């Protein structure tokens, strides 16, 4: 063997960093500490993998997560043992609930100390077990390249999810070197994630859709994760299906398309929830019949035949029974449907029931008139919906929009009409306040030329406000739209509706001066308190290309999010305003 072919000898720490580079990782988000000092030293000694120093480990996880949501590739987090790892827990759970690929590298105390309650020892394998797709602990430094490969493979394939890699400090000692060889691919006998869908089931699904009189396409985050928007859009158009997206699926089908009927579920559009309830065929693609979608499962869509495509068999017939289950990655399954449709077309076969569909669309268009996303306009107070519409105009509908959790999140989902996938980035499953700003940072870092907007509330933004400092260090010019209603608005809305407006701890006294706060961190702050001030403020904010601008926008503190499903009701039972219900 020639000298060049000899594998290079590297320490565990250096192998880890090299493996990340070989995996194509550009950025790692993290925070140093005792157990990961060898790894940080290895990072220092190379320039391929760049490290972003956050101000709290939770932010590192959300940055990695949002990068994954925007790019489709796993984000990477590096934290120390003990408190570093536990600070990452909320972010790992956030990614897990939304099936986001992520690799979280956690330091651990030295192997011989594990179990001794050593300084900064926590059982991260145990803590993370219920909130990861998989976790692994390194036992032998020589295994590091293989384990990194395995971590990425598991995180990114099948139904994606976070993977935790727990690395005891003695696995990364600089003086102990091992031959480095990064595996090209990896096979696991116990894990085969690439289901293509059963052709017979796919045929049955297509026949059912062709015969449908009142069909609906209900698509979720799986279409975004599975990069199948084009196939979904083509199929929907060819079958003339009304399309509704879940909160996680927004952008998978263009919102400006006439066949789009809006988001469904708890704060879904009147028409989307009506269409679902009255449908004879529900074509669910990469969606999981979440309780925020179905409302009471017993009353769910009584007349529908349900076709369900999902890569995760456990998501099929979990809460709602599927009549035609198809286990497979959405993209190849939809491609197969399209090619079967081509064949039918070629034979001049498989015609749609045009008359029934025309009647169905008539009915849908009538439903569209009922609520139509209307909201009260006031001369003296800014309405949150109007702010989102203005942001949409100023960004030409082309921004990456991240959000926190609360009313502002629902307004953003309803009124920023997403035409492209991967642009709407929010914590749907866990509903993590504090997600928005770090998420915006993760996207901006990778897409510096793109407009990145964080829609937040004065409650949520304070959960990770310290990251304004990280933004300054890395020049992350995100635009923060703080829909400041002075309340934990979503909590207040429930208290208005169910607790006779007893505002138990939903009012925040002593809010900071956000403009001064932004300035203290070295950014630009703009306060907007009247409707006239909005346009010039947005003008100015978006003209400041590379600056972080914090827009503190004071909105009507009394506004509620509507439509809202009546708790315990069917899909189509909704409040349409403070005074109307279906």
């Amino acid at each position: 063997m020639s000298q060049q072919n000899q594998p290079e000898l590297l320490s565990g720490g250096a192998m880890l960093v090299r493996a990340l580079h070989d995996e194509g990782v550009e950025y790692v988000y993290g925070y140093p500490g005792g157990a990961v000092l060898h790894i940080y030293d290895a990072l220092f000694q190379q320039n391929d993998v760049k490290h972003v120093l956050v101000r709290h480990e939770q932010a590192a996880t959300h940055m990695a997560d949002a990068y994954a949501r925007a790019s489709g590739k796993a984000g990477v987090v590096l934290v120390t043992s003990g408190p570093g790892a536990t600070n990452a827990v909320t972010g790992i759970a956030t990614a897990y609930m939304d099936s986001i690929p992520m690799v979280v590298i956690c330091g651990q105390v030295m192997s011989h100390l594990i179990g001794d309650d050593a300084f900064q020892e926590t059982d991260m394998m145990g803590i993370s077990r219920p909130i990861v797709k998989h976790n692994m602990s390194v036992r032998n430094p020589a295994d590091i390249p293989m384990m990194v490969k395995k971590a990425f493979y598991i995180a990114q394939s099948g139904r994606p999810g976070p993977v935790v890699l727990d690395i005891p400090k003695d696995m990364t000692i600089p003086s102990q070197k091992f031959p480095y060889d990064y595996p090209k691919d990896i096979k696991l006998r116990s894990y085969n994630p690439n289901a293509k869908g059963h052709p017979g089931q796919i045929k049955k699904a297509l026949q059912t859709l062709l015969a449908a009189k009142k069909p609906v396409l209900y698509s979720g985050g799986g279409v975004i994760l599975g990069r199948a928007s084009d196939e979904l859009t083509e199929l929907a158009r060819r079958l003339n299906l009304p399309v509704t997206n879940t909160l996680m699926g927004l952008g998978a089908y263009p919102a400006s398309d006439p066949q789009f009927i809006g988001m469904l579920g708890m704060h879904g559009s009147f028409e989307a929830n009506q269409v679902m309830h009255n449908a004879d065929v529900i074509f669910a693609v990469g969606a999981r019949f979440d309780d925020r979608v179905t409302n009471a499962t017993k009353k769910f869509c009584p007349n529908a035949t349900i076709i369900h495509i999902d890569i995760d068999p456990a998501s099929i017939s979990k809460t709602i029974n599927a009549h035609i289950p198809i286990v497979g990655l959405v993209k190849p399954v939809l491609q197969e449907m399209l090619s079967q449709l081509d064949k039918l077309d070629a034979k001049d076969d498989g015609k749609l029931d045009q008359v029934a569909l025309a009647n169905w669309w008539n009915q849908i268009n009538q439903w569209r008139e009922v609520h139509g996303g209307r909201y009260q306009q006031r001369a003296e107070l800014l309405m949150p919906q109007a702010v989102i519409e203005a942001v949409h105009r100023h960004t030409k509908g082309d921004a990456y929009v991240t959000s926190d959790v609360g009313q502002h999140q629902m307004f953003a989902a309803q009124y920023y009409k997403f035409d492209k996938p991967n642009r709407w980035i929010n914590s749907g499953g866990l509903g993590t306040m504090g997600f928005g700003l770090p998420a915006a940072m993760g996207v901006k870092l990778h897409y510096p030329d793109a407009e990145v907007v964080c829609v937040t509330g004065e409650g949520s933004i304070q959960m990770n406000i310290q990251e304004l400092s990280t933004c300054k260090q890395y020049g992350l010019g995100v635009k923060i739209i703080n829909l400041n209603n002075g309340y934990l608005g979503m909590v207040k809305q429930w208290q208005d509706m169910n607790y006779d407006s007893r505002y138990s701890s939903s009012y925040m006294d002593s809010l900071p001066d956000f403009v001064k706060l932004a300035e203290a961190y070295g950014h630009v702050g703009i306060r907007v308190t009247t409707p006239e001030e909005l346009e010039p403020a947005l003008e100015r904010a978006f003209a400041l290309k590379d600056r972080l601008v914090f827009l503190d926008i004071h909105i009507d503190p009394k506004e509620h999010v509507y439509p809202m499903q009546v708790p315990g009701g069917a899909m189509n039972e909704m409040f349409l305003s403070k005074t109307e219900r279906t």
Partner: protein
Amino acid sequence: MRHIIAVLLENESGALARVVGLFAQRGYNIDSLTVAATEDPTLSRLTLVTRGDDQVIEQITKQLHKLIEVVKLVDLSDNAHIERELMMVKVKASGDQREEVKRCADIFRAQIIDVSPTTYTIQVVGTSDKLEAFIQALCNTQILEVVRTGVSGIARGERSLAL
């Protein structure tokens, strides 16, 4: 309904915790669980006895499948199968009792595997029902201790759960 699920699992540390954790997190029942390495030391074989309606059992098997370390599994209750459990019972046995306990053990084809002047330790192998029947049969005897292994199961005939 009672189901017996047999699982082939990577014999790695933490894998068993994942299986048990799954049941705790999702609120599934475990009546019993047995586990040991197989003839291939890289694989463990589990037998899980659980209860639930069809929908719950379907979720249990799907969720188990999702665990990366689960290689294969089968619901043995779907087909003819054999199940066995081993129990050791320590009973008070003195005077007249000694003879009566011995007779009872013979009827159940149980074996007395340890003896002291005042006690017997009896081993019984069989289905869970048989083990329970044996305990019932000992109703006149003072039971000092019962230890059961939990059920192990295997399919009848040529079907087998292997790689």
